[in-house]
Every structure is written in structure tokens, then in C-alpha cells.
């Protein structure tokens, strides 16, 4: 995920003129954030005890920029917390039941109920800060453990090793099942478990799941009542009949399984927002899975019955789409207000293969793609699965949408490579085809997998710094890594290489140990029975989702700066050991001086050593060696308390920025403060051979040991995809990516601001191809005058 505030040109990627007036009004309602009275900003709720906690630092500690604000956010939420009246025997229950009761009381009595004018899918307020429902002694121990973990997390973060925490969201609940049997069906299943011979603790846990399912029923009854209340003041006959239908539907779902498309959309939305409310985590990474697959039967039924006209179906989808965007209201307060960014991701997986490699895209998939393009919204975020049997017309549709967009309308996940990774981590191949995508591009199974995809983030490049300084952080002199010896004593490349590996392994050990501290705290003190009710296996095992109760339990370690790491190792190998153009002593001096007055050495390392991303086997082999090394090393670790194993991923979010000043100069010629590489991409500007070479380098990484998947971004100029013929070439590029590339791709069609940046920082954009009359050229290598011309044309979409 990136935080680039890329702006889009209105003409290229704007809402369609064909949207109905209703949808236009609803869209405007959302965008009137600063004026509208209805907001989904968080409501805080407390048990009213003086020790109560409504906030967990570990829920948010993947973002170091927030560390200084945690105390004040906590205090604010405490101060605004609304006391909730609770039954007399409340404190006699176990924690899971207390959480379930609290959730039920809040959602059925306290949370405001709002239906916006015109909307057809309802359910507005779902941002919460819920009491952790802990008693006094639990709170005391929890807070002590929390401080101990946070101290260690702070220590590792302060020197740029990375972050380690335990974050909600980033999961695909079993929405498919909830829709097919209704919450009622889940309750029936769980009541069956109660009939068995189970421990009292297990029994109470299952009862807490049942209560949570009933919360969903009772919550929607309030919306039914609200619709009936509005009916009385509504005169418009059309709206009246809509409100009657909304009331009927909300009385029925999600308790009963839906039958029509409208009912299914409403049921899904209700079940979905209650997860965000239950986890007190609105939006980030709570994902729908293969939405076009499990929603299709409802769509088909409504279409075939003739009760729903195609235009009405589309309008329903528009209404449903907009709802997802209110997660961003949460960013309006709490010190997070840097404007609305697209940092959240309620992912919707579209397309992809079936069990026998057949293509699963259906009519609803195509309809969803139209809706995405017409709506032009931040959420939900679609991920399109591509595989070797993706039909040409579908691929052309995708390529066409990419070509018209500035900024990416969706990410692409590539099935065969993604599935290989999931199989490597233990998922049987006969199940792995049905994976879904969470957060940004992270591959997980659906409905039975918590892989906590952003919990631990490692700065891979830091291992080079430690290997070149006997395990000590260069800025502070702190011994963070192991003592691998004075680099001046290294007589072979292998000695250097192995030292880097030893340091990498140590960083992984430190971060996973710290991550396990947070994971254990969450498991002990933050059960989420409502979510557990939606995850396979929790009820049977009597374990909360946060205790590792579902079938697949992982914590993902996301690797930052792989290209910076391998470019650095390759530069040392070539320049110090193979060609001996500089000595280790000179290199160390240059690095300690941050290349000040060492421009010759810096240029040599930067310009003359091979760089990842150019299909150069010298460095790509090193990349593969290190990528598989840290992937396998990560997989050796687990948290014994929850049984969650660690697995590797390449999702760099924005960490390559905050980690930059905390990472010493590196032997690839990077100075302290210059960005690390992002995702599996090359160091910015170092991939000078175009998209195909960059794709092949990524493909050589051996990504099966990175089951989470890898973020790869390719930037294209609009001129590259202007004609239909060139759009077809982009489609062919995507098909080839599926064979020789990585697991996930974002295509950015750049805008004029990016071109301006390229003009002033040519080093960062040496890979940017443009299309000129009859040939291709690199943007940074053409004359200034022509650059100006191209920028102007991009602005005008000529």
C-alpha cells in the first residue's frame, strides 16, 4: 500500500455521467465530509469502572508515526466514553462472554441508528472504541504486559529494525457461509456443539458466539424500526415503498438467509460493519474475499425471477459501494487527520480460477468492474485475480480500465504464483485455488485464516548495516545484532554474505519475539466473539480467533527494502571482492561518513555495480538467495501461546520513508535518509531496462517462500496505452506476468505531477518509458522542451 497522494485528472477517472440522481446525491453526501451532520466518527463505550480501558496500543502500533499520540488518543477516547448499563452478574462471566454482552448492549441500545436520504442499503455508524471489559486485576496485568511489549517495540523501532505488533482487520470472515445459512444457521450449528460433552469454559465461549450472532439480528431490527419511523414522515410514494422494503429486509436478514440480491447486499453489509464495530477497527483490511462468487447466486436468482431490473441491480450496487467509504470518517479526529487518504482496504476479490484451473468470472464480475469504473471511489478496493485461463476479453477489459485510470482502479493478483506460496505454507493444493486477498494484496484463505498481514515489518536492509559494524547500530553504537566480527577481517565474499545472513536471522528473531508478546496480549485480553462466530473452527475448538482458534493461523512478517539489501550485497561482492576496485576499509570509511566527500566511491557503487530489477543474473541470483533465506528463516518461528507461525511477505506500505533516516548509508550508494526500496521493486530509478526486465527480476526471487505475496508496481505513461492496439499489448504483458513475474502487480498510469517530479529528479525515474512517434524513449532522456510538451499533454489528456 502506498500513501502517495496521487491526484487524478477529472476527465480520465471520474464518476460516470450516467449515475442516477440518487447515486450522485449519495456520492456527494460522502464527499461533503466537512459539512454533513451524519458522521461515522468513533463512539467510545465504557463499563464505567475506573480502571476501564477502551483502547489497545497494539491495535495501531504498525504505524510508528502514531507512537507519540497513543497516550492522548487513549485519554480522549476515555474522556468521551459513554457508560453502558450492564447486567448484575456481568463480572461473573468469562472475558469472551463479557465482551459479547458488552457488544450486544452497545449495538442494540446505544449506537446511533441512521438512514440517509435515498439510500437503499442501510447501516451507518460502526466506528467504535469498545471497552475491553476487563476486571481490575486483568487490567493491571494486561497493562504491565502491554508496557513491556511496547518498550521492546519502541527499542526496535527507534533504530530502524522494524515494527512488531498485533493488529485487527486483515481477514476474510466466512461471509459466504453467513449468507448461505444466515446467522440463524450459525446459531443452530453452535447449539449443536453445546449438546456435546464440552468444558464449562468452552460452553460459555460458544454461548458468547451465539449471543454475538443474535446481536446482528437485533441490531438490524433497529434499522427496520428506523425505516418504519421514517415512513411516517415520508410523502414520496416511491421512497415510501423503498422504506417498506428496507424495513422488511432488515427484519429478515442477516438472521435469516437472504434470497434476493437486495437482501443479500443488505445482509452482507450488516455482517461486515459489525466486524469492524466488534474489533473497534473500521476498515483496514477487513476484506470480502471472492465476492463475485458467493454473491452471484443471489444476483442470478433476482435476475431470473424478473423482480429486479438490470438498472435497478446496478443502482443497488452503487448504493452498496458508497457505504464502504464511510470508514474514512474515522480519520476525521484522533490526530489522524491528514485528510482522507486511501490507507484502508476493504478488499473485494474478483475473478480467478476454480478448482480445475477453469475461469470463475461471471456476469456479476463484469458488472462489478463497470460499477468500479462508474463510481470512482476509494472503497471497496478490488483485487482482480488473473490466471492462465483468464479469457482474452476479460483481460482486455482489465487492461482497458487500467489504461483509462490515473492511479490504479485495482490490484492484480496472479493465481498460479499465489497458490504456490499458499501450498508452500501448508495449505493443500485442492483448497488453495479458493484463496482471497486482504489489505492490499496479501493472500490468505477465506473464512478460516487469520494471517495478520501487517503485524510485523522488518527492515531487511538493516542487516547490511549491522554486518558492516559488528552488530552495532551505526548511529547510536547500540549492539542490536550479533557480533559477526570486524568486516576488515573478511577475506572472502562468503564471509561477508554469511554475516549478513546471521544478522538477518537475528533481526527476525528479535521482531518475531516482540510480535509474539503483542499477539499473546491480544489473545489473552481481547477476545472477539462476534468475529470468532464468523470464522471456521473457533466454536469447535473453543478458542477465540485471537487465540488461534481458526484453521490457518499465521503472523506475517513484511520485508522492507529487499532491493536495497541485495543491491548492497551485490555491490560489495563485485567492487570489494570480485573486482577489488575498492577495499573494505574504504567502503567502511565511506559508509561511516555517509559518503560525504566520497562521491567517487558512491558513484562507483551506484553506477557500476549491478542492480536488481534489470534482469541481470549476477544480482538476481543474490536476490533469490536472500529472499528465500529470510522467507525460510521466518517460517521457523512461531508464538507458542497462540500456535501462530510466522510467514514472510513483501508489502512495504510507506515504511521505506520512516526507515530511511534510521538506516545508515548502504553499499549500493544510498545515503542515510534516502528511501529504501519498496515492495519487490527495484531501488527507485535503478531499473533502467523497462517493465519486462523488472518483471523477470521479480520472477526470479523464488516467491513461493513468501506466501503472503509481493507488492510490485509498474509505472506507465498514458502514451503507452493510448491506442486500442497498445491496450492489447498491456493485456499481453499481464498474461506474461502470470508466467514469469510475481504474485501481485499494481499498474500506475502516471499523471502530470509525477512527470514533473521525474523532470526534477531524473535519477528516480530512469525506467519511465514513453511512446513517441514510431518508437519508445525514456522520459528522463529527452530534452526539457519535449518533456514540457508531454507534461502539458498529459494534463490535457491529449
Amino acid at each position: 500500500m502506498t500513501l502517495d497522494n496521487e491526484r487524478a485528472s477529472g476527465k480520465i477517472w471520474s464518476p460516470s455521467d450516467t449515475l442516477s440522481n440518487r447515486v450522485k446525491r449519495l456520492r456527494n453526501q460522502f464527499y461533503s465530509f466537512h459539512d454533513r451532520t451524519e458522521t461515522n466518527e468513533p463512539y467510545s463505550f465504557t463499563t464505567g469502572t475506573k480502571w476501564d480501558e477502551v483502547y489497545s496500543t497494539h491495535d495501531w502500533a504498525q504505524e510508528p508515526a502514531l507512537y507519540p499520540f497513543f497516550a492522548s488518543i487513549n485519554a480522549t477516547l476515555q474522556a468521551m466514553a459513554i457508560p453502558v448499563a450492564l447486567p448484575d452478574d456481568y463480572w461473573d462471566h468469562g472475558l469472551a462472554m463479557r465482551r459479547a454482552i458488552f457488544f450486544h448492549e452497545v449495538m442494540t441500545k446505544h449506537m446511533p441508528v441512521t438512514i440517509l436520504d435515498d439510500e437503499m442499503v442501510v447501516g451507518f455508524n460502526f466506528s467504535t472504541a469498545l471497552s475491553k471489559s476487563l476486571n481490575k486485576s486483568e487490567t493491571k496485568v494486561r497493562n504491565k504486559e502491554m508496557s513491556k511489549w511496547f518498550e521492546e517495540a519502541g527499542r526496535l523501532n527507534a533504530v530502524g529494525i522494524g515494527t512488531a505488533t498485533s493488529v485487527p482487520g486483515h481477514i476474510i470472515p466466512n461471509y459466504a457461509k453467513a449468507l448461505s445459512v444466515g446467522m440463524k444457521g450459525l446459531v443452530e450449528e453452535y447449539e449443536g456443539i453445546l449438546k456435546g460433552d464440552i468444558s464449562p469454559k468452552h460452553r460459555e465461549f460458544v454461548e458468547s458466539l451465539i449471543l454475538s450472532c443474535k446481536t446482528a439480528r437485533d441490531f438490524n431490527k433497529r434499522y427496520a424500526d428506523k425505516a418504519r419511523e421514517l415512513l411516517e414522515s415520508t410523502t414520496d410514494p416511491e421512497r415510501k415503498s423503498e422504506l417498506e422494503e428496507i424495513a422488511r429486509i432488515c427484519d429478515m436478514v442477516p438472521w435469516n438467509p437472504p434470497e434476493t440480491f437486495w437482501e443479500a447486499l443488505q445482509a452482507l453489509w450488516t455482517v461486515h460493519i459489525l466486524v469492524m464495530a466488534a474489533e473497534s477497527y473500521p476498515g483496514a483490511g477487513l476484506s470480502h474475499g471472492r465476492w463475485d462468487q458467493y454473491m452471484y447466486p443471489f444476483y442470478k436468482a433476482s435476475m431470473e425471477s424478473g423482480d429486479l431490473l438490470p438498472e435497478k441491480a446496478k443502482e443497488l450496487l452503487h448504493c452498496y459501494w458508497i457505504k464502504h467509504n464511510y470508514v474514512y470518517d474515522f480519520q476525521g479526529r484522533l490526530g489522524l487527520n491528514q485528510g482522507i487518504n486511501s490507507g484502508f482496504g476493504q478488499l473485494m476479490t474478483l475473478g480467478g480460477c476454480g478448482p480445475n484451473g477453469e475461469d470463475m468470472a461471471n456476469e456479476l464480475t463484469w458488472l462489478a468492474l463497470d460499477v468500479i469504473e462508474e463510481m470512482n471511489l476509494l472503497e471497496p478496493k478490488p483485487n482482480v485475480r488473473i490466471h492462465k485461463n483468464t479469457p482474452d476479453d476479460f483481460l482486455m477489459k482489465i487492461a482497458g480500465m487500467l489504461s483509462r485510470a490515473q492511479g490504479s482502479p485495482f490490484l492484480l493478483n496472479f493465481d498460479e504464483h499465489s497458490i504456490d506460496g499458499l501450498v508452500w505454507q501448508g495449505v493443500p493444493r485442492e483448497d488453495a485455488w479458493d484463496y482471497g486477498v486482504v489489505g492490499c494484496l496479501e493472500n490468505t484463505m477465506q473464512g478460516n485464516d487469520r494471517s495478520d498481514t501487517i503485524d510485523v515489518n522488518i527492515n531487511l536492509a538493516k542487516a547490511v548495516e549491522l554486518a558492516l559494524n559488528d552488530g552495532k547500530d551505526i548511529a547510536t553504537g547500540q549492539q542490536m545484532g550479533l557480533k559477526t566480527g570486524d568486516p576488515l577481517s573478511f577475506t572472502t565474499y562468503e564471509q561477508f554474505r554469511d554475516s549478513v545472513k546471521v544478522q538477518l536471522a537475528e533481526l527476525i528473531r528479535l521482531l518475531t519475539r516482540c510480535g509474539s508478546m503483542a499477539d499473546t496480549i491480544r489473545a489473552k485480553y481481547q477476545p472477539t466473539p462476534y468475529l470468532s462466530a464468523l470464522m471456521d473452527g473457533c466454536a469447535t475448538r473453543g478458542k477465540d480467533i485471537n487465540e488461534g482458534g481458526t484453521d490457518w493461523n499465521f503472523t506475517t512478517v513484511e520485508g522492507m527494502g529487499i532491493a536495497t539489501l541485495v543491491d548492497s550485497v551485490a555491490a560489495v561482492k563485485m567492487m570489494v571482492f570480485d573486482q577489488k576496485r575498492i577495499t573494505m576499509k574504504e567502503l567502511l570509511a565511506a559508509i561511516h561518513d555517509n559518503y560525504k566527500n566520497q562521491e567517487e566511491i558512491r558513484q562507483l557503487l551506484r553506477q557500476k555495480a549491478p542492480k536488481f530489477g534489470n534482469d541481470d543474473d549476477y544480482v538476481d541470483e543474490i536476490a533469490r538467495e536472500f529472499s528465500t533465506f529470510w522467507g525460510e528463516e521466518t517460517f521457523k518461528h512461531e508464538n507458542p501461546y497462540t500456535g501462530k507461525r510466522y510467514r514472510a511477505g513483501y508489502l512495504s506500505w510507506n515504511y521505506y520513508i520512516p526507515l530511511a533516516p534510521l538506516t545508515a548509508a548502504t553499499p549500493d550508494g544510498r545515503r542515510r535518509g534516502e528511501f529504501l526500496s519498496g515492495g519487490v521493486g527495484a531501488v527507485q530509478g535503478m531499473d533502467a531496462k523497462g517493465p519486462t526486465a523488472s518483471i523477470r527480476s521479480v520472477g526470479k526471487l523464488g516467491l513461493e517462500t513468501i506466501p503472503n505475496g509481493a507488492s510490485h508496481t509498474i509505472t506507465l505513461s498514458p502514451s503507452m496505452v493510448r491506442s486500442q492496439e497498445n491496450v492489447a499489448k498491456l493485456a499481453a504483458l499481464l498474461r506474461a506476468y502470470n508466467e514469469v513475474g510475481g504474485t501481485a502487480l499494481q499498474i500506475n498510469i502516471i499523471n502530470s505531477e509525477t512527470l514533473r517530479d521525474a523532470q526534477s529528479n531524473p535519477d528516480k525515474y530512469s525506467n519511465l518509458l514513453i511512446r513517441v512517434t514510431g518508437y519508445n524513449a525514456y522520459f528522463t532522456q529527452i530534452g526539457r522542451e519535449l518533456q514540457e510538451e508531454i507534461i502539458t499533454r498529459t494534463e490535457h489528456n491529449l
Partner: protein
Amino acid sequence: MTRTGILTNIQRCSTEDGPGIRTTAFLKGCPLNCVWCHNIETIDSNPRTVWHSEKCIGDKACIEACPEGALDLTTEGMVIDLRKCLVCGTCEEECPAGAIEIIGKTWEVDALVEELIRDKVFFDTSNGGVTISGGEPLLQHEFTKELASKLRVKGVHVALDTTGYASESVWRSILEHVDLVLLDLKQMDPEKHQEFVGIPLERVLENAKILTEVGMPVWVRTPIIPDHTDTRENIRAISKFIAQYMQTVERYDLLAFNKMCIEKYSLFGLEYPLKDYDMIEKEKMEVLAQLACEEGISNVTWSGMTKRDDNESELTRTNEVKTCG
């Protein structure tokens, strides 16, 4: 001994040199001297040392390394004494910053084949392949022939991007080894052709006719250069010729003039002769393309930037953000 050739560049992911996604090999050396040449570095058959001022850090490693004493860094920039320079490459090797470059690298044909087929998967999914371009690749015809035939053995579609200027025997022998010819027809007036391009027109036209005789698929391309090739008469004449003699033409491209090469000229201490010309009007491109259609050519396209209509209103911009990666 393996045959070697001299290349100026290898361009991967090329989308403009024939069908599909292609890798284009630019061979060095060209017998033509087009006034509007975009790739002057490809004209001279021999390698040459050039200096990139923007990359130079002034450490003078190149000067110290040069065994011939051919380099001097003056207030005007690097002076390379071409009489002394043996193009041995020592300076390029020693320069840490990549500021000195030898344009023109020698490749053994087998190594080049391996390099060019790296994107084979992309060729296969896009019906692309390798384009052998230049310069004029037929100046190195033995090398081109061997390269093309070895690429085809590997299952790669080969396009030859040529000026069409070669002896009949060379021409006929190369055609057996390629799948597509991208042929430039620039100017149909023999005198103007001689003046602007530097070679006689007749040979090119004879060779063009041979393409049909041997059944070779062809894409004809005409650069639309103001005051040089952009008249209706010229395009009509080219179109008539195609219609009459070139039945295997699959497509006719009109390429609008641009000045992307100004920087390249400065690298050689030269000024682009057409630097003061403006871009072509869009209407003109459309008229010329229409004219070609009227002469009975079925697949005519035009491409490139055209002169901007400054009345185009400024578009309103939104503040929305749409990226995730």
C-alpha cells in the same frame, strides 16, 4: 570464430517497432544521411566515445586512465580528441559515474541471441518478437542474416526495420530469414530523395517491389517531416506506389515529426538541423492519412504528437486519492 556486430542499443518492451511486445536491436552504421535523422549515433559505423556532462563528477579518472592522452576537461566541458582516441574503453571502465560512454558495443551473434530472447514469454503472449533496426542493419548484412536466422530457430518472430537501401542480392538473401519488413518510404521525388536522404531513390523502390514478389509481409512507414515529406503530392505518390506495387503491405503508418533527438545531437556537439520547425497540425496528419486511404490502402494509421491547440480548456481537478500498493 563467431561473427560479431556493432550495436548502439537494445530496447526491451518496445511497443512501436512492429506487432506485439518486442525487443529492438539497434545496429550501428547507416548509408543514409536524412536531414531529420533521430538517431545520429547510429550513422557512423564505428564506435565513438561520448561524454555525458550531467553525470560527470569532475574526478578526472577518465583523463588519468586514458593511455592516449585523448581527454581534457576544460571550462567548456570534456574535449575528446578524436584523432587520438582509439575507443579502447579504458575511460568508460574507469569513470565511476557513468559519464563516459562508448557508443557502439561489439556483440557476438550467439550472445546477442541469448540477450534478445530474454523476453520470449512476452513475445509469445503478445505475438511480438525481435526487431532488427539501426542505423541500417543491412550495412552489417552477414551479421543481420545470422542473427535473424538464429532467432527464428528459437521460435522468435523477426522484423527487419530497414531503409531498403541494399544491393538486390543482399536484399533477397536477407528476406529468407525474416518474418516482417518495416520499410521506410520517405520521399517519392528522386531529386528531393537524393537531397534529403543522401541516396538514390530507385534502389529503394526496386527493393520494395521485390517484397511483393517474395510474398513478404510489410509495414510501410513515412516520417511526416515539415517541408521535407509532408506534402499531399508526396503521400499520394507513396500511396499510389504501394497500391500498385506492394500488395503484401499490411499497414501504412504516418509518423508525425518530433524533436526528441535534440539532446542526442548536443552529445555529439551538433545542432539538430530541424530544431526550429514546429510540430505538425493534427488536421494535416488526418488529411494525409485520409489521402492514403483514398488511394486504396486499407490499413492506414498515423501517430505521434501534433501541434497543440492552446484553446483547450483547463480541466478541473479533483482531490481524490486512488492508489494502493
